[in-house]
């Protein structure tokens, strides 16, 4: 039996600002992980990834990141994604400063 598909979000960096963005269910790029669309079906996830990757004038380096689907929306499962979702740990810069 193949491994069950773990929930994912589509994420990238914004072309102009360079900051971390996520794909929302209504196709908007959003700045906060909690607003991202959680994809639980592998086939749908691949389609969303393809569509998002085609938006090359908006986003760079599009990929699927694993999340845990919690009560407060998607949460990062790996520390790299946790840093992307908040910002660096030495200064209160990046997303954590934007509130």
């Amino acid at each position, binding site marked *: 039996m193949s491994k069950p598909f773990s929930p994912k979000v589509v994420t990238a960096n914004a*072309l*102009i600002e*360079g*900051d971390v963005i996520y794909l929302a269910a209504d196709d908007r790029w959003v700045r906060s992980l909690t607003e991202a669309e959680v994809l639980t079906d592998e086939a749908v996830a691949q389609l969303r990834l393809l569509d998002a990757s085609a938006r090359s*004038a908006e986003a760079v380096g599009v990929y699927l990141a694993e999340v845990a689907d919690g009560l407060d929306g998607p949460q990062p499962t*790996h*520390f790299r994604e946790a*840093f992307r979702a908040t910002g660096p*740990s*030495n200064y209160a810069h990046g997303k954590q400063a934007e509130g």
Partner: protein
Amino acid sequence: MYRYTDFDTAFVAERNRQFRQQVRRRISGALTEDEFKPLRLMNGLYLQLHAYMLRVAIPYGTLNSAQMDQLALLAETWDKGYGHFTTRQNIQYNWPKLGDVPDMLDALAEVGLHAIQTSGNTIRNVTADHFAGGAADEIADPRPVAELLRQWSTDHPEFQFLPRKFKIAVTGSANDRAVIKAHDIGIQVVERDGQIGYRVLVGGGLGRTPMIGKELADFVPQADLLPYVEAVVSVWNLLGRRDNKYKARIKITVHEHGLDEIRALVESRFAETRAAFGGHDVALFEEIAAQFAPPAFRNAPTEVYDAAYATDPVFRAWADTNLSAHRIDGYAIAQISLKAHGETPGDASADQMRVMADIARRYGHDELRISHEQNVVLPHVHKSDLPAIHKILKANGLATANIGRISDIIACPGMDYCALATARSIPIAQEIATRFDELKIENDIGELKIKISGCINACGHHHVGHIGILGLDRAGVENYQITLGGDATETAALGERTGPGFSADDIVPAIERIVEAYLEHRSGREESFLETYRRLGMAPFKLALYGEETAKKARAA
């Protein structure tokens, strides 16, 4: 200091004009990211974890006050008010927006700075001894060589698509402060029968396959340097592996083919390049060297310094750690530590940059240096000015007295910024510095260099740290491996792994146990950590880290 010629100015302006158009076409959608990426990398622009990052070259680590002021302006105008000085004497801005980068590059060009070839598979910024021009042990200033190499390598048509990046470092002293043995080519100025020449090392490098550079030539005459270096890069350009980027660096080429074969190939290619160069390079070198004439040193009494040293313990502590011998009597080389305890190694705020620029202007013959150890250097200060300089530094959080001490840590940006990182470096450095500051044993420990990298690529030079720390991702958790016995100087050595790594919570106590073991086992205060390690080997440190069982196994093995 080198001043741009009309050619240099026009060249940089043209590159900036081209890049402005390239950015415009990327934003309009006319260029895809695949098309744009190599273009932005050629101009030092990366896309990192949270934002773009612009890496600005500081050739051979030398800046004047106007340039430092301009770096401050960039930090304030287009970044978040600070910049990060790196282990290759560059400065990185962590938060620029794509559309602003052309303006940043134009602002840099106003003061003779650029970001060309700070990335990509090209010859990168040539680094040099940060004491160049002032060091008491110097045979000749290495910077004219570095500038000659910079002009030769910039946009060199043969070397724009090398198998991999290529790094060159130059030292003018036998005491190596430029880590030349960990560079693709390391150049040491030497003197033979009254003639200046160069000892050329090849195949050093850190990263996933660390190697110490090997001597390719013991004496290349001054006039032959450029054709000789061109021959080396040219041989590697054809031979270097393009099938596997992990085997592409010249250290692997030298390792696979052997030093003798490489030397024979270089000699044969050198016969061609030497004939082709025709002496223009020698004339150019003379022109460049003339611009690095020493400043007008003054002869003045040093009583003010002596009095401050005798009466002010804070000044004395700073003078003892942060000053080095200058070749002129009455002068000193002063290091400004960017390693305040608990702060990010190598970071300076725009205000601090302006303070350092102002000190250089008023007291330092308008010269500043950036060291690969991520500190700033005032290479020529008269001792009588040091009490005044120290006072200004103190008022601006820049008077930390810890050069060469355990808190003077090299750390790469790690996973707080870098897209390649596998773990964080900065918080580990901050915690170690804070902890040893609390213990108040830094001066008792003496010289101890900790170097931290957040991934195998080793930007934090962990292999050559007396204590090296490598951050890895072990099953989704940050894990830190320790190496001991590394050395970045003329007696370069690669550190040896102690054993299993430590979690982010356990790494600082582990470092503390190593230091306690050193203090317990050293023969006396005058025996440094590295000397103790070389005398006793790994065993006492393994015991301190892992306890009796593991240490026994290690002895049996």
